[in-house]
């Protein structure tokens, strides 16, 4: 009787182990197929015209994406880092810190379409502007702000306490300690957060739908920054790669719209991968350094 019971238990254990291996294998396979499909589909029938800066290619959209993410990081990096520093260093353990934590949590869990609507309301409707890149960048920075703030908090908390004590013992003020001792030591970790935020910014679409706009009109020989067609003018509409894919589902403006969307997907995935690999590389180096 008890022998049978043991047998059943052992058989069940084996069966479940096999099942778990199957599920694990299934996911690795699914991911592999997904990525391979996107890359293969994106690069079959590849022609250099896809890179061109016209409506047959994605040159303009690619430039807009990079420019918009750069603008958003210029805004969210200082603000996010400062917020993080405030939370760990200055706010103490009181009610304000708790409330600020709640705010960061709320911001990070807001659906990006809601953030997009807020951006549309504040940066477009209230300023009476048309769609523009800076409004898109501001909306994306609302999304990346909590990520950068929390990585900053984690980075500062991971520093050894004696860094601070040593600096205080030399007579430095709290601010001097932060600026010259703690921040430099925390920067590699903060950079991982910024890279992650950038990776997310590249793929963001819902927040840009009503802020950056769905059109782009760039004249590459026009370098007057106040002109509406100058590539560097942040107050012009700028469709990003992700929005371009969204646009390809119905409004087939170019005859090769589907091909462009496939190619854009492949490019987006390559960007996101390289960013995640870079951030893994950096955090791997940090943990090796810490172990020494």
């Amino acid at each position: 009787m008890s022998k049978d019971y043991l047998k059943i238990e052992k058989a069940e254990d084996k069966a479940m182990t096999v099942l778990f291996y199957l599920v694990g294998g299934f996911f690795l396979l699914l991911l592999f197929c997904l990525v391979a499909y996107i890359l293969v589909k994106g690069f079959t029938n590849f022609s250099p015209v896809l890179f061109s800066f016209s409506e047959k290619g994605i040159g303009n959209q690619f430039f807009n994406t990079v420019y918009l993410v750069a603008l958003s990081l210029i805004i969210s990096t200082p603000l996010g880092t400062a917020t993080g520093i405030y939370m760990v260093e200055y706010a103490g353990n009181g009610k304000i810190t708790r409330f600020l934590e709640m705010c960061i949590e709320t911001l990070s869990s807001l659906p990006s379409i809601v953030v997009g609507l807020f951006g549309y309301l504040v940066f477009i409707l209230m300023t009476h502007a048309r769609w523009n890149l800076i409004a898109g960048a501001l909306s994306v920075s609302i999304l990346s702000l909590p990520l950068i703030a929390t990585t900053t908090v984690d980075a500062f908390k991971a520093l050894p306490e004696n860094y601070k004590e040593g600096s205080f013992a030399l007579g430095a003020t709290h601010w001097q300690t932060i600026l010259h001792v703690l921040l430099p030591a925390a920067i590699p970790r903060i950079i991982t957060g910024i890279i992650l935020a950038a990776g997310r910014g590249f793929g963001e679409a819902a927040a840009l739908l009503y802020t950056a706009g769905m059109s782009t009109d760039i004249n590459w020989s026009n370098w007057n920054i106040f002109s509406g067609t100058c590539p560097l003018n942040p107050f012009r509409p700028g469709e990003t790669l992700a929005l371009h894919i969204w646009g390809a589902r119905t409004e087939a403006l170019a005859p090769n719209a589907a091909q462009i969307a496939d190619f854009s997907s492949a490019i987006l995935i390559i960007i996101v991968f390289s960013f995640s690999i870079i951030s893994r590389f950096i955090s791997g180096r940090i943990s090796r350094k810490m172990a020494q």
Partner: protein
Amino acid sequence: MYNREMIKNEYLGRMIITICGILVIVLTLSIGVFLLVKGAGTFLIYKHSVWEFLFSSAWDPQDTSSGGGKVGALIYIAGSLLTCGLALLIAAPFSFAGAIFMTEIAPKTGLRLFRPAVEIFVGIPSVVYGWIGLTILVPFIKNLFNLPHGFTVLSASLVLAVMIFPTITTVSADAIRSVPQEYRDGAYALGMTRWEVIKGIVIPAAKGGIMTAIVLGLSRAFGEALAVAMVIGKTKAFPRSILSPTNTITTAIASDMGGAMEGGEYNTALWTMAILLYLLSLFFIYAIHKIANQTSEGNNKCRKTI
């Protein structure tokens, strides 16, 4: 002299940092306030009741500022609930199995192969998921079930399931990993098999974290707009089965906001939907905190009895 030094070395920096912190608080509050101001018009200007908005399925707001239409959003709310619920049903078992696989069964492969793979899943932009859904899944479902088109609740749920799977997997894997090794050692010493340990010890001990994972997955699914919009079909009707098209809150906002007249009844009703999304994400945060509190209380009780 002393004061001037202190201003330069401490107070100025402290002030800038504090202003940044306060700015974030103001930003968060103002998102809520602005949404409320815009969306409350449905009830204050156009005199609809909250009851009508939440529980009526007659959706026919006028695209003018004279009002008089109907703003029952039940179809959209039901659509969101159905697609997200179904996505969770599909994703949750697979995610738990994945989490157990990468922590209990094959921790080395898990760390070296599975975890980075799951992170890549998270990184794939949502429009790319939507595009894949549109070009592979929708035709596939159409041919499989002999439908006139493949825009169905099922397609949307499958796309959402793939999107929330990494969230649920990583969070529950973290919870499983934080179960103390002594629990397992004790159970093994009693002669339990690995599956018995997982089923009887590890999963119950990690219950709080697993619940958090579910809530996080749900909140991601509720907020997703464009990927769902690409595969759900956007019809203004309740789905008859999981093989018929419907609409969701986020989809309605994403596709209709641009065309609606600013300040009109239609536009205002869409803003009210945005309030609903905002309140839902607050509710999800509340639920996560509630679970965390209960879990830590439970753990404390356990420790006391030991």
